[in-house]
C-alpha cells in the first residue's frame, strides 16, 4: 500500500480547516477560521499557493460556486478534502498522537 503524503504544519492546518468548514470552505472563510482557531493571520499568498499545491497533489479538490455582487460578480472557489487528503491528515495526526503518548503536556506545569 502506498504511504500517505507527508504534510507540512500549514498544510495540516489548512486541511483541518477545510474539514471543519465542510461545504463552506472557500478562501475568505478558510482564512477567517484559521485566524479564529490559531490566532495567527495567514498571509493570503501563502494560503492560495498552499491550496493550489495541495490540489496538484490531489489532497483537495475545488469547485466553482455561483457569482455574487458582493465579490464584483466573481464566483467563490470551494475546496473539499479528497480521500487522499483525509488519509494524509489522519496519518499526520496519528504520528503526533503517538509522540504525545506518555507526555502530560496539557496538565501540570505546562498547562
Amino acid at each position, binding site marked *: 500500500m502506498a504511504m500517505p503524503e507527508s504534510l507540512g504544519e500549514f498544510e495540516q492546518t489548512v486541511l483541518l480547516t477545510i474539514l471543519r468548514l465542510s461545504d463552506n470552505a472557500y478562501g475568505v472563510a478558510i482564512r477567517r477560521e484559521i485566524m479564529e482557531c490559531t490566532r495567527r493571520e495567514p498571509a493570503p499568498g501563502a494560503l*492560495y499557493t498552499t491550496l493550489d499545491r495541495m490540489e496538484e497533489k490531489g489532497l483537495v479538490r475545488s*469547485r466553482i460556486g455561483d457569482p455574487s455582487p458582493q465579490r*464584483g460578480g466573481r464566483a467563490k*472557489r470551494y475546496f473539499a478534502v479528497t480521500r487522499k487528503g483525509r488519509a494524509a491528515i489522519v496519518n499526520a495526526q496519528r504520528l503526533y498522537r503517538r509522540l504525545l503518548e506518555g507526555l502530560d503536556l496539557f496538565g501540570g506545569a505546562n498547562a
Partner: protein
Amino acid sequence: MRSDLVAEWILARLTTRIRAASVVGDLLENRSEKGTLWFWRSFAGIVLAVAWRRPLAFVSAFYLGLHALGALQMPIYGVHAAHRPPEAWMPVFAVLLGPGMVLWMAAPYAAIRFGLRDSFAQIALVFGGLVTIIIFYWWIPAVLAACLVLAFSLITTSIFVARRRRALVALAIATVFGFGGGLLAFYLAGLYQKHLYPGPVAEINSPVINWGVPLLATWILTTACSHIHRLVVGHDLGDPKADLQIKLDS
C-alpha cells in the same frame, strides 16, 4: 479601469482565469472591511507567492546554460583536441554539445519552476548528467557503455509509466525547440551584425549580440519548456485545462 479588473488581469497572466477571478473576489469581499491598502498589499503578496519561481527559473537557466557551454567546451577544445585527431572527437562535439547545453538549461528551469519531484525535471537532470559524463569521458569504453545502457534503460522504463512517458516526450520536444531557438538566435545575431558591419562577417563583440543571443535562446527554450510541459505533462497553475477540470468538478 476598475482596480479589481486590473488586479484580476495581472493575476490571470500568472495563473488560470478562474483562479484569478476567485482570488480577486475573495480580496474584494474583505476590502470593504479592511480597506484598499490591505487589498493591494495582499494582492502584491499573492503575486509574489505565485510568480517568484518564474524569474528565478529563467535567470538560473540563463546562467547555468552559459556555464554549461563553457564547461562542456573545455574538455572538447582543451583536452580532446590536444590529444586526439578531430575526426575522433568531432562527432561527440557535433551530437552532444548543443543538446547538453539545452538540457542544462532545461533542468534547472524545470526543477525551480515545477519542483524536483516533477518527472520532466528529473529526466532532464539525469540526461544532462549523462551527456556531461559522455563529453568528459567518451574515450573510456566502460563509462560510455554504462552511460548508454543507463540512458537506454531510462527511456525503456519511462515508456511503461504514463507520466514519465509524457515527460520524456515533452523533454525531447523542448530540447528540439531549445536547440532550434539557439540556432535562430545565432542567425538573427548574424543578420544584426551584417546590418552593423556591412561586408565580411567580423568577429562578434557587440554587447547586444553577446547578451542578446543567450537571452533570446534562453527565452525560446524556457517558453517552450513551459508550454510543452503544460500541454504534454499536464497539471500546472497556468494550465487552461485546469480551468476545465474545475468546471467539470463543479
